[in-house]
């Protein structure tokens, strides 16, 4: 779908104007391209068409032809007559054909919409003040825009269960459901976990799980986003915050190398929820439930909030100073991270060059679910390849370091985010080694480290990641970090400035990108940070095509494609 010119374009007549639209799309999309809204509930661009809500009714007609001869029938002015269909048709289920005429603003359409709204509202509770959907509710919006504005219904409304548990993360408010079946189709089509269905008839119709099953797959919360009303609610977010208080900033999910596009919603510096952001080349409109939990790490009690030297709390600048003395060790090793942003990895590579340090990297791997959680559980492994921090594919441990230590070629380690002790190193081995730790959360390494420099999570800084299909995507700071903390970029830049007084290293992303995109052999050549579009840039990955990437075929990703040039 989409109108990128690859598909042929046809002309239709929308409300009396001839407009060009791509062939093969339906009327809702066609009207949307030209700025006309056709209200709809059950239609979702990334799900099959069900056509059950009837909100999208429009008037349609085709140029008339004689049945026998196929000759166009003309009116007295010599213009071909339009054969208007006497009843409205659903826009979602009707595809455009050349010469088709549609009316989205006629009185018949208005009447239809009013009628549909009235029926939908007959049994809809007056819940808006307590409904989590209020503010982003299609029913509210369309009732205002296309509804009658008053109710003629004097009978008693239906009463249905308000707190049905559909699964561990989803609660259903039955009264509010408008039976659009989006959630059912999502489970069938996207997750292939057929658990939801309607039972009973008429006004008794109810959404429910099949007997003995529950909505527990790792994508269940997408049904909450899909639901045009407040029927499906997130048990986690339920009654927590009204959506109109939330500030949304675009981010990238760090759960795995899939790099789902997300919206981080926060109020006054506190993140309240994470929802998927539509990107048709990466995650459509979905994301995994597990990724939505990640914001909780921001306020985790294990969060590192103060810098320390030899377990003594101190201010950040003196901690950086003592880290710099450690870094002057000739036998330095740097442990990078696939969780760091591209810019951080670049500066780290530069630091390794300045200090002539050895570089180490660990991958984190898990199971691939074939959708949006990939086997590589880091957001930016590809970044280490592109920035040159690493040339080979990392393993899930750091045993390389043990060898280096055993050979006595390492006596100081700068560790970014990784935990040495669960990566195959023993406390005994590390006894004589000084450790500088940069990271967001406490772990065994940070408690052993000589210098601890707390840094910021991906919600508290801006930067970019490269996902499994070598797509470069940027994320924006959503909330301010804890008081007194600086982003990793700043810390590493101050190392560089202290170690090499001659060249000034900035910690500003835009300027770092100027250095990053200089080399013409690099796929980042000529890219400007500010020019990276919201849905990312596809990079050339031929250089790494013989590496053994662990990801399996999944949504918008096929391992084989990496071998081909896929420049955008």
């Amino acid at each position, binding site marked *: 779908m989409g109108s990128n010119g690859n598909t042929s374009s046809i002309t239709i007549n929308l409300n009396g104007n001839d407009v060009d639209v791509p062939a093969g799309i339906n009327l809702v999309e066609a009207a949307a391209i030209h700025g006309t809204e056709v209200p709809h509930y059950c239609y979702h661009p990334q799900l099959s068409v069900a056509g059950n809500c009837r909100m999208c009714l429009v008037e349609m007609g085709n140029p008339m032809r004689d049945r026998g001869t196929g000759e166009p029938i003309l009116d007295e002015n010599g213009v071909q007559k339009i054969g208007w269909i006497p009843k409205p048709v659903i826009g979602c289920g009707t595809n455009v054909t050349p010469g088709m005429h549609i009316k989205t603003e006629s009185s018949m359409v208005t009447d239809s919409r009013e009628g549909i709204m009235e029926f939908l509202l007959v049994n809809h509770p007056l819940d808006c*003040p307590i409904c989590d959907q209020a503010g982003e509710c299609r029913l509210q919006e369309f009732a205002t825009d296309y509804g009658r504005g008053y109710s003629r219904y004097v009978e008693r409304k239906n009463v249905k269960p308000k707190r049905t548990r559909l699964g561990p993360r989803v609660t259903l408010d039955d009264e509010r459901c408008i039976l659009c079946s989006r959630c059912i189709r999502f489970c069938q089509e996207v997750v292939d976990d057929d658990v939801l269905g309607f039972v009973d008839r008429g006004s008794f119709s109810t959404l429910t799980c099949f007997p003995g099953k529950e909505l527990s797959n790792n994508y269940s919360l997408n049904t909450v986003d899909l639901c045009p009303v407040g029927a499906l609610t997130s048990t986690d977010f339920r009654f927590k915050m009204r959506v109109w208080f939330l500030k949304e900033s675009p981010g990238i999910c760090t759960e795995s190398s899939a790099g789902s596009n997300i919206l981080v919603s926060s109020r006054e510096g506190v993140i309240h929820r994470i929802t998927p952001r539509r990107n048709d080349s990466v995650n459509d409109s979905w994301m995994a439930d597990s990724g939505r939990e990640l914001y909780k790490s921001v306020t985790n009690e294990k969060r590192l909030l103060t810098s320390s030297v030899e377990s003594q709390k101190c201010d950040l600048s003196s901690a950086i100073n003592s880290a710099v003395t450690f870094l002057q060790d000739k036998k330095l090793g740097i442990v990078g991270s696939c969780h760091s942003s591209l810019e951080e990895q670049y500066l780290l590579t530069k630091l390794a060059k300045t200090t002539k340090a050895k570089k180490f990297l660990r991958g984190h791997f898990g199971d691939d679910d074939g959708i949006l959680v990939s086997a590589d559980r880091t957001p930016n492994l590809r970044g280490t390849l592109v920035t040159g921090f690493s040339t080979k594919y990392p393993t899930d441990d750091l045993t390389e370091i043990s060898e280096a230590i055993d050979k006595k070629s390492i006596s100081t380690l700068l560790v970014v985010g990784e935990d040495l002790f669960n990566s195959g190193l023993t406390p005994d081995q590390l006894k004589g080694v000084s450790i500088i730790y940069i990271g967001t959360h406490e772990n065994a390494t940070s408690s052993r480290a000589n210098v601890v420099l707390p840094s910021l999570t991906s919600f508290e800084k801006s930067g970019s990641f490269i996902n499994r299909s070598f797509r470069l995507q940027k994320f924006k700071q959503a909330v301010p970090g804890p008081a007194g903390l600086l982003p990793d970029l700043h810390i590493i830049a101050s190392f560089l400035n202290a170690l090499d007084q001659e060249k000034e290293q900035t910690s500003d992303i835009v300027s770092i990108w100027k250095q990053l995109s200089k080399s013409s052999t690099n796929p980042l050549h000529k890219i400007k940070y500010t020019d990276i579009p919201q849905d990312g840039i596809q990079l050339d990955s031929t250089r790494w095509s013989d590496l053994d990437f662990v990801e399996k075929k999944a949504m918008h990703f096929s391992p084989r494609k990496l071998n081909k040039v896929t420049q955008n």
Partner: protein
Amino acid sequence: MAKTVVLPREPLSLSERTYLPQIVTGLKTTFSNMFKEKVTLQYPEEKPIIPKNYRGVPTLVKDPNGREKCVSCQLCEFVCPPKAIRITPGAVSEDDNSRAHVEKAPKEFEINMLRCIYCGYCQEVCPEEAIFLQEEYSSSGYSREEMINKKDKLYELGGTLPDSHYKWDKKKSAEDDGNDH
């Protein structure tokens, strides 16, 4: 340009020019004022009469059944121009039978009276008619914390007001005798 018209002034008479008669008139006025009724209100002992539509301290009210009406929709928090209101929403437990179909109620509700400007927007916006600016006008405290009215204080100040809608009662009866599934 507007035309300037100079109006001729009546020349003052001699007695007017001495100003003395005018001064005497003035003295008479002030003197007679001394014996008029005084308008001073001896405040702590005498209280002013509060007009009906007075906007005093914002308070939370309960319905005649003693239920808290506020459902923590946070509209008042949203509308409040000086951001005086702070609500932490909470869920009502499922077994609380008195609160048929009200699933949400404020866990905490704070109005900072040092911020409130008594505009009454909160009362106007409230969809549940739960917040009212009533007659209370004197609020004072020794610290900033004391000037933040907490939920219990707000209910204590608010009391119960008559309710013409009984919205939740209607839903409860609908649930109890009919249309239930």
